Each structure stands twice: as C-alpha cells, then as structure tokens.
C-alpha cells in the first residue's frame, strides 16, 4: 500500500513539525516553572505577542518575512525582559496560587490590549513564496512550510542544547538551577541569569508563535486558548526538563496529527486521553527531574 504509507509519512512529518513548534512555545515555560519555580500562565501570551509583532512588522513595516521574524522575536524578548524586571518581581514574591492568579491576570490584560489594537478576527502571517508549495518525492509529498518549521525548530533546539552544554552562560545557568545558593556564593548573579533565561524562553515562544501561525492561528484569545496545550506539554514532559519537553511535544504532536486523521470522529479527544494516561502512569512526567 504505497499510498497509505506515503500518507502516513506525510502525517508523520506534519506531526513532528507541529510537535517541534509546540516544543519551541513551551520550552521556556518548563524552565520558568521547573527552575525558577514560577507558575507562569502568561507564557503562551508571549507566543501570541511574538506572532503579532511579526505580523505588524510585515504589514505596517513592509519588512520581508525573514527579516520580520528575528525582529519580532527580539522585540518580544525585550518586552519580556522589561516585564520580568518589574511586574514579575511581584509574582516571584507570591505563593503558587497567587502566581497563577497574577499571571492569568497578565494574560487577560495582554488579550485585551491585543484585541484593542488588532481586532478580534483570526489572522495568520502570510508566507513568502519560498515557503509555499509542496515538496514531492514520488507519491510522498509534504508542504515546504512544514519542513521549514521542522528544520528551524531542530536548529534552534540544537543551538539551545549547545548553548547550555558548552558556553559559560550555560554552565552558570546549570549551576543556578542545581543549587542557587551555592551559585550565588561563587559569584554568579543568579537573578540576572534567570532574567536572561526568562527572556530567551519568551523569545523561543515568540518564534514558535510567529512561525506557527499556520497551525495555531493568531487571535486575541490565543494566550488563553493554547495555554492548556502548552501547560500539558510541560506537565507531560516533566516540569523543568528540557529533554522531557522535547519528547512530550513530539509525542503529543504526533498523537494529535495521527489521531485527527485516522480517527476523525474523536478529534482532539485522543490527545487529552493520552495525557491523562501518561500522567497517571508517570505523575512527574516523562523525564522527572531528580531532587
């Protein structure tokens, strides 16, 4: 059955690229939650903000897609850094429930601001000609856009890993994660390291939000609508584990894509059923952090 096989392959590529985008959006959250111990329900809103910044840079700034993308991400990072230095200082001081309420409050505010500026309609960023069309390989064909998302996310994830493993900043971050007090004692500016990490996480979310608009279209309620999805990726992966987030994002992306195609009657139900099953079997996620 070459047809069934090529469909399966196409779905797999789609699922992996969807999963990688989910990884980009959620990886920052696993760090803020697991490492900085902050329940940050505003995280998905940063993905939305990144998407809108990119959209506006293209629409009003007249920039090319590939120029607007990094600028949009940079603008979101700047904004997140600003917020982290100000409003999030209150969040850090609250208990978990307070953090949850404060950050969901911030998401409400972000939603309202975006709705006022951009209007309530659903939008997506128009792709440049380079990214439209299909890549065909015999009977097997896959959209160029999906491959682009896939490659970009893999590159970013790789860069992230290299940065964590081989740079001084990565070493500082790992030290700050493992033992914040000791790290402070040896002269690492822990709050600064966390600030930068927070901004990087938000930047990754912004990138995911901006390149993923064909899969998760932009709208003012983006931050609330996809929050559950992002939280689930983090919880399934194991809070605080980058590797876990990667596995769970890929797994959920694949399950969702396959499920929607092969068992359309169940639609989005399958993904939540698997989430429940996984969390029942492994309450601390796929890759539980030790200690």
């Amino acid at each position, binding site marked *: 059955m070459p047809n069934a096989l090529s469909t399966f392959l196409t779905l797999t590529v789609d699922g992996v690229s969807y999963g990688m985008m989910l990884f980009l959006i959620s990886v920052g959250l696993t760090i803020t939650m697991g490492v900085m111990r902050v*329940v940050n329900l505003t995280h998905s809103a940063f993905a939305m903000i990144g998407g809108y910044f990119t959209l506006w840079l293209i629409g009003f700034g007249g920039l090319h897609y590939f120029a607007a993308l990094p600028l949009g991400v940079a603008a979101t990072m700047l904004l997140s850094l600003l917020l982290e230095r100000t409003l999030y200082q209150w969040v850090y001081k609250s208990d*978990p429930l*307070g953090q949850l309420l404060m950050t969901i409050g911030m*998401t409400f505010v*972000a939603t309202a601001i975006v709705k006022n500026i951009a209007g309530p309609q659903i939008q997506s960023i128009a792709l440049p000609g380079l990214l439209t069309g299909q890549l065909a390989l015999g009977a097997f064909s896959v959209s160029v856009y999906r491959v682009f998302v896939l490659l970009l996310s893999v590159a970013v994830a790789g860069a992230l890993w290299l940065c964590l493993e081989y740079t001084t900043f990565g070493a500082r971050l790992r030290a700050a994660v493992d033992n914040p007090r000791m790290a402070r004692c040896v002269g690492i500016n822990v709050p600064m390291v966390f600030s930068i990490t927070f901004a990087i996480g938000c930047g990754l979310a912004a990138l995911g939000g901006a390149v993923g608009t064909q899969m998760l279209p932009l709208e003012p309620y983006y931050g609330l609508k996809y929050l559950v999805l992002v939280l*689930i990726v983090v*919880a399934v992966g194991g809070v605080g584990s980058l590797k876990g987030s990667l596995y769970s994002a890929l797994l959920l992306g694949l399950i969702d894509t396959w499920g929607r195609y092969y068992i359309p*009657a*169940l639609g989005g*139900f399958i993904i939540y059923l698997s989430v429940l099953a996984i969390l029942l079997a492994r309450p601390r996620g796929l890759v539980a952090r030790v200690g």
Partner: protein
Amino acid sequence: MNKSSDLNVIAPAFGRQRYNWTDVGLLAAAVVTFIFGEYYLALAAVVVVMAIFALSLDLAQGYGGVESLGHAAFFGTGAYAAALYALHVSPEPISGLLVGAVAAGAVGLLSGFAVLRTRGLTQLMLTLAVATLLFELANVAKPITNGDDGLSGYDVSPVLGLFQFDIFGRTAFVYGCVVLVLVYALLKKLVNSSIGLTAQGIRENQVRMRMLGVPVERRLWVLYTISAAIAGVAGALSAQINRIVGLDSLAFMMSANVVVMLALGGTGRLYGAFFGAIIFVVLSDRAAAVDPTNWLAALGIVLILIVRYAPEGVAGWLAKRGQRRAK
C-alpha cells in the same frame, strides 16, 4: 493564620461555627434583591449558582489545600447530568439536583484517585487535564450532548409540584437561594467537623497530620468528592434555571472564573465565595454590557493588585478589620 497567640486562634475558630451578622446581611441582601430588584433576578440567579460553585471550590482549595484549575469538570458534569435526566427520565427538579450531585461526585471520586496523589503543579495540570478531557468528550459525543449547539429542549416541572418556573425568574431565584442556604449550612457543619478540621491540618502540614495517625489520602478523597458533588449541584441548578447546557460549562474559562472569584472573595472562609461571586458576576455583567474588551483588562489588573495587596481577598480584609475592632 497561625502567627498570633493560641487564644487568638482558638476563639475565632469556635466563633466560626456560629452564624453571625455577615450571614444575616447576606440573607437580607437576598430578600432585598427579591423584593426590589425584579429586573435583576436573572442576574441574581447567576450569582447564586456561581456562589455555590465557588463554595465547592473553597472546600477543596481553601480547606483541603487541593489546587484545582479544572473545577468546571464537576460543574459541567452536574449540568449535563441534570439536563439529560430532565430530558430522558423526569422533569422533576429536586431529583435532578441529586442526579447532578451524584454524577459529579462520581467524577470527583474517580479523578480524585489520580489528582490527590500529586501536589502543586502536577495537581493543577491533572485537574486541568480531567476537565479538558470531559470538555472534548462532550464535544465529540454530539448525539448525546448536541456538541457546540448546547443541550436544550428539556422541561423542568414546578418545584415540589407547587412553584412553576416563571419568566421573571422569581421561582428560579428563590429555589437557588434555598439550595444555596442548604449547601452553605452543610459546608459550615462540615468544615467544623472532625473531617473539616483534619483537612485544614492536612493543608497546613501534611506530614504532621500523617504522624498523628490521620488517614490523609482518604480524608482528602472524601473532601474532594463532596466538593465535586456540590459543584455538580451548582451545575444542575444552572441547567434547570437556564434550560440550556453548553460546552462552556466544561470550559477552561469556567474553571478559571471560579478560581478568580474565590481569589477576589478570599479562600478558606466560605464567605469569600459569596463576595467573590457577587463582585465578579455583577461587575462582569455590567462591564461586559458596556465594554467587554476593557473589562478583561480591568479584571486582569484587579487580579494582579488583589494578589499583591490583599492576598486574602475581600473576606480576609473584612475579617482583619473585624479583629482590629475587637481589640
């Protein structure tokens, strides 16, 4: 809570078992609404439903320390159960409430098994996953639930065979208030019973309660199931009053709203549920009529400020004022 001297802790603890002026004031407010607020009775009925819902969350969160981002699971289950019961079995409302309570309680019992094994963030995620699962289930099971269109077309017969539901919502409001009073009385009894007191102990220090020989898991399980059943009552009430049950009764926003309400009102005091429901429902109704977008922004800002400056909500602020006056 445990920073003052022993006497200051014990005295209010016993005081809490009695009914006081706040209860009288709330009852008076309900009566005044019924007599003078005939155009607002529909809104008042929503307040009553949400107050019951918030009370159920207060039991789990404020007393048991179980954090939930998915309490809509029980509200929606109760609502759908009551609607299906009215549609297929009997339009009698009081048995409908019980059906809603039992169905939601069953969901609480089952999901509690998973949810209560964990704490903190994972617990939040599990409650969220349960609620989302039920939401998607209701969405998929279109032949039974009617999916996006909502379940409607069922009839609700007069309460006790005497009071017909009228177009002004008089019966609905009084019916809701009676249910609310009963739930409140039950909860007041419950939180001051041995199970309620041990639950508070568990909330404060789980390890110590275990050392004292308290069956921690079982206590929390019972508490969570009761909380779920009460949320189911709220959902069933909403189904009977509104004559329609939509997917929104299971949605994340429903769970988030009730958490917000309880935060506004204050947790662990029961009154918080009343204040939170009144403030949230009335304000959101008024503001949504004027400007829904900026209402969301205002709500967000209020949330941030409440957590920063009044973490115990309106009820906590009132209680502190009361204590200061007593001194």
